[in-house]
């Protein structure tokens, strides 16, 4: 593997981690709010107002922007289909984070799926 490719690969790993953090913070931010059952437009607006006052949502947005900026840089360097396929890496990180940080129970079928994604990523990288 060329040195430049290794750099891009580590950037994709980095933005997949950013995406994972984005989702984790968004999930914890939304969890902190009450159950949302939109009945009318007023409740939707109230929900959005509550959402933007939640600090986790802002941290999540920050990771989102960081990931978007680096993503644009990656796209200037490599093929779209290559980068887009490798971006599926965040499924793997989320499965790991769910198991080891959130202590959720990750089922066998999900690990099988995660393994398939890892194999797919390996093939795309080797191609």
């Amino acid at each position, binding site marked *: 593997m060329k040195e430049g490719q290794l750099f891009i690969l580590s950037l994709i790993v980095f933005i997949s981690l950013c995406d994972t953090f984005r989702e984790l913070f968004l999930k914890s931010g939304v969890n902190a709010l009450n159950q949302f059952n*939109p009945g009318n437009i007023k409740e939707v607006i109230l929900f959005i107002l509550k959402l933007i006052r939640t600090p986790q949502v802002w941290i999540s947005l920050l990771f989102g922007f960081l990931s978007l*900026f680096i*993503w*644009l*840089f990656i*796209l*200037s360097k490599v*093929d*779209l*289909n*290559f980068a*887009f*396929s490798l971006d*599926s890496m965040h*499924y793997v990180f989320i*499965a790991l984070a769910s198991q080891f940080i959130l202590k959720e129970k990750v*089922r066998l*079928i*999900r690990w*099988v*799926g*995660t*393994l*398939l*994604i*890892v*194999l*797919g*990523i*390996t*093939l*795309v*990288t*080797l*191609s």
Partner: protein
Amino acid sequence: MRIFLFLVLSEMFETFHQFCFKKSALFENDFNINSFYDILIFFKLVFSSPFFWIGLLSLILMFIIWSTILSKIDLSIAVPIASFSYILVALVSIFFLHETINLLRWMGIFLILTGVIFVSVSSRVKESTLT
């Protein structure tokens, strides 16, 4: 039936915004970032491209449509259908960006696609055993 139309729309916007972002980051010459100043130049170039703004608009539209979909159907059904965008992005890359995809990469894409379907279906299995 309407939800299916929404899913197709959402996938099209997903693919279209990736295509626009790629277009906005394509420069005549190879761009190298060696200093902080280069980072500013890079984003000045990207932001001055209309493709970036069309892509961003398409991303926002996709987010709205996707939220609507998720309020109607389960994530374990929506994600497998939406993962069709891996194929769509590959096709757009070939036909509009003139990228090449060899057999090994196609195999990788299909493995990822299968994996994503497995991961998302697993949450439905869990829910059905609970009820």
